[in-house]
């Protein structure tokens, strides 16, 4: 098994790969590219907001960012610190009651891509954000479902961004399934609208699946990362694509936008 050489820099070009991107920058850039051409994205705070904002400036200029709090088409003057930050409301295109947000926008099928995080993910893209241990008396009580279950069930596809790819978070068996992918939903007799998790961006690479019946498969790694590394960091026997790509590192232009326009205060680009 070999690692691909780093892509050749286009000398002097504004879009040349940049040196010294942090892990956060790497994840935000990779996730932003995956939003190419999308219409609507349901984003949480942090990396998803960075990715969506960057995509808005690059590959998806028509992208409408929708927040769980009911904000549609936010144009914040500052980087928001929560999904309900006052700066998201002032200057937004619409602020909807939650019943409309969850009922018509999300369940109605208007979200192309939803970003979700989780404490645990399994090979089918099921997510746990509820507990470590038993629900009744957990070792660690996590925040729970919030709207994640609804995003999973109703967005056309789900992107997951995980800062740390470890066997504990990429687990063979979830302690609790908070947000089930389509396979579990179908087993429960109900067909969800979307494909569930289609992309998982991690500090090691990219896992993908197309929808129900498919498991996550390693399709790309960051430069310098080997397939074996990813396999060892995964708690199940990881499926690997026939050809594993090397992810193009952030370009100078992407990093400049991210650092100067999207998060100049380095709130999330830690």
């Amino acid at each position: 098994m070999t690692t691909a050489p780093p892509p050749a820099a286009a000398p002097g070009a504004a879009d040349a790969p940049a040196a010294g991107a942090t892990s956060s920058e790497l994840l935000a850039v990779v996730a932003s590219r995956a939003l190419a051409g999308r219409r609507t994205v349901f984003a949480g705070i942090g990396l998803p907001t960075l990715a969506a904002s960057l995509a808005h400036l690059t590959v998806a200029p028509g992208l409408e960012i929708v927040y769980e709090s009911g904000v549609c088409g936010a144009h914040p003057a500052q980087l928001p610190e929560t999904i309900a930050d006052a700066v998201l409301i002032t200057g937004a295109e619409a602020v909807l009651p939650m019943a409309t947000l969850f009922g018509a926008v999300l369940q109605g099928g208007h979200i192309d891509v939803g970003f979700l995080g989780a404490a645990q993910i399994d090979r089918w893209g099921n997510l746990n954000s509820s507990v470590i241990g038993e629900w009744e008396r957990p070792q660690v009580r996590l925040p729970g479902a919030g709207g994640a279950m609804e995003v999973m069930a109703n967005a056309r596809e789900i992107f997951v961004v995980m800062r740390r790819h470890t066997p504990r978070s990429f687990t063979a068996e979830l302690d609790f399934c908070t947000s089930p992918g389509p396979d579990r939903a179908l087993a429960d007799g109900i067909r969800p609208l979307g494909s569930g998790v289609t992309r998982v961006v991690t500090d090691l690479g990219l896992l993908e699946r197309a929808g129900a019946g498919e498991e996550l498969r390693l399709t790309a790694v960051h430069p310098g990362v080997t397939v074996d590394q990813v396999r060892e960091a995964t708690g199940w026997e990881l499926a690997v694509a026939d050809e594993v790509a090397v992810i193009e590192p952030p370009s100078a232009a992407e990093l400049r936008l991210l650092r100067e326009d999207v998060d100049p205060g380095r709130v999330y680009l830690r």
Partner: protein
Amino acid sequence: MRDVEDAPVARRFRFVRAEELPAVERSVAPPDKTLSMRDAVAAFVHDGDTVCLEGFTHLIPTAAGHEIIRQRRRDLTVVRMTADIVVDQMLAGGCVKRLVSSFVGNSSAGSLGELRRRIERADPEPLEFEEYSHHGMVCRYQAGAQRLPFLPLRSYAGSDLPGVNPALRKVTSPYPGPDGEPEQIYVVPPVNPDVTFIHAQRADRLGNTQIWGLTGVQAEAVYAAKRAVVVVEEIVDDEVIRADPNRTVVPAHAVDAVVHCPRGAHPSFAQGYYDRDNAFYRSWSHISKDAERLRAWLDEWVYGTRDHAEYAAKLADHFRDHLAVGEALSGQVDYGRRL
């Protein structure tokens, strides 16, 4: 799982590559959804479609109905809570095969002549009629908007309507009722029109639509539809919309076209823009009572006008003398900005 031990690491990577990125400027224009009424109807209304026109007394999308008549669409299913003058006109225009409604009358001003001829005498042809109550229609729009198989409501028990409308059904609640016994409730199915037209005071070019005064069921009717056309008194700059995002009743993602059509709600009203033409409502009972007179009215006011601008121009004096309204400002609220 197949053996992947020696999967080659390749550069076949379907993410957008850095060099494919568009120029990194905010200059990329957002999608402009403005269309003429003619183009909007041509694009979004086809023979046999299910067409919803909503607006409860306020902001009735009359001009959209007239353009559908002008373009001689046929075999439409029309969905509208209060089937009133515009529906009577569409019936007379021969556009409508089936009506889904919860009120078929000319407001409190009288009757709908064409509708009554169609229903009472199948003259000139029968009208398929699917009848609900107002709340039933509201729930159908909500179910349609929310992609639900049904919604329950506390109506219909003991009514004769379920006997003539098999879509009205009962469900047993999985929770015990107040007396501990199983509880039944009626449900309605969703409605998902091919296209919904609403009229509104203003929108931006992206489709963010603001309504004040009666907001009715417009948001639900738009969200329930496969396509939505918003007809507005004014197209305004983004900044006007974004100064007051709570006023946005329909966000851009739910809108496919924005049509600028001042006075397009006549004879209904647009709060703050023009008043209801009550005299016309009263006269409609007389016009529509006589099939010939109704045809003559259509010839003059719909077929005889190229578009709604021409219709409105014929009424310019009437608008000025009878339908103009004075000012009553809302006051402002402060959304605040971070210092």
